[in-house]
């Protein structure tokens, strides 16, 4: 379970999050929507402490995350998939998947590789195990990044605009993997502009604007009958 309590975040003079309160239940699929600059990415990045909130509390499974324990909590409980994939370019696909398990969890190399191959197969890239990231297309890189998140076996996976940097024809292969993933009992928090995906997999949608959550609800309710003027405006522009 993820809890954000009265989160404020400022970069210099700019306040990007204003008193955000949010709870994500175990196994829930949450999609965060909103115009750019609304604070969606900052919200998700506060969850794993990539951004330290200026004030407020982040709780994971009842434990409060601090600067001190963040490596341990984040390593054990959550993974992240980034817009720019952020694979390690000097490591092969397989090594990208096994580095953290071997170095942090001290799993034997052989076991880590076996597990990595299992997840590579899951995203359909087992034949690319020994390739380097730069030899893959954007869609393939993002699928590797998802496999890297899966191999950690964390209950929570955060997706920060996973398809925004992809060429249009590659969006589907990544979304397909994510839709598949949504069938499992993993907590997924996803910042995205893919409305079809949100409708299909989300248990709940939250809509942010100007650093605040201004609307939330079931995806069908939200998309068909948005309550706030701002959400109506937003939806009319992107649908």
């Amino acid at each position, binding site marked *: 379970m993820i809890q954000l309590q009265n989160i404020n975040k400022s970069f210099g003079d700019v306040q990007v999050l204003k008193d955000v309160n949010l709870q994500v239940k175990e196994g829930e699929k949450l999609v965060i929507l909103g115009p750019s600059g609304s604070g969606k990415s900052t919200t998700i990045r506060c969850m*794993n*402490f*990539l951004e330290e909130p200026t004030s407020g509390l982040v709780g994971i499974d009842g434990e409060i995350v601090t600067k001190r324990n963040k*490596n*341990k909590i*984040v*390593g*054990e409980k*959550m*993974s*992240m998939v*980034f817009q*720019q994939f*952020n*694979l*390690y*370019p*000097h490591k*092969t696909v397989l090594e990208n998947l096994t*580095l*953290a398990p071997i*170095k*942090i969890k001290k799993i034997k190399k052989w076991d880590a590789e076996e597990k990595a191959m299992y997840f590579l197969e899951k995203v*359909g*890239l*087992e*034949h*690319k195990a*020994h*390739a*380097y*990231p*730069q*030899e893959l297309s954007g869609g*393939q890189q993002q699928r590797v990044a998802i496999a*890297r998140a899966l191999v*950690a076996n964390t209950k929570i996976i*955060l997706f920060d605009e996973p398809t925004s940097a992809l060429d249009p024809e590659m969006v589907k292969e990544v979304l397909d993997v994510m839709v598949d993933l949504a069938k499992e009992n993993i907590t997924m928090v996803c910042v995205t502009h893919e409305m079809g995906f949100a409708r299909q997999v989300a248990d709940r949608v939250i809509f942010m604007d100007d650093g605040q959550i201004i609307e939330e609800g079931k995806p069908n309710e939200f998309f068909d009958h948005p309550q706030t003027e701002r959400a109506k405006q937003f939806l009319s522009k992107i649908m």
Partner: protein
Amino acid sequence: MNFFKGWDKVVSEIPEFLTAFLCVTVWVAIVGTLLALTIGIVVGLMSSSKNKFIRFIVRVYVEFFQNTPILIQIFFIYLALPAFGVRLHEMTIAIMIVSLYHGAYISEIVRSGVESVPKGQYEAAESQGFSHIQSMVYIVLPQTIRLILPPLTSQIVALFKNTSVLQVIAGGDLMYVAASWAGYTGITAPPYLIAAVLYFSICYPLTCLSRYFEKKNEAGYVQKKSKDPAILQLEGGALDV
């Protein structure tokens, strides 16, 4: 006076030249390189420190050594130290100077190398639970090292040539032996040519190495072509993606 006269006389001096080259020039260069790399890496990492005072000290050091001639630096140490009652061997002074001088340059190379690794790499590492030190060791530095190998090798070449500042403090290195021999025999070109050939014999291969690293970087990180038929088949069968 013929510029190219005197080869017959210089030939018998070649062993002396070689001794000076190997025992002084090469030795100073090797120890100097190791020290310069150590200084460069430590100072380079310090310059991305969050502490303002540390960054200030680093700037002072780097700007001083980069913006004054190495000849002045060596004279300064050579003449100043005895005033404080410190007597050091000429070779020790030379090692100090070349390592401080090139350490300053190397620290800038290291700093720019570390800074050129995208922020996303740190974030990915952090999101996997790596501590700051672990991210540096496993993710950032391996990428940095490969990136900075070409300019680093060029610095080693420059350091090797700069060991010739030993000449001005009578350090007994190759340049000193060549210059003094030229001085008292009046035969000028041959000893300097021999010295040039010896410097070249070490520096040229290093320069080629630097170029090789550069080429390798242009290609980026790519898979070595596998000869294993099983893997080839696996890759060949992957036309659907």
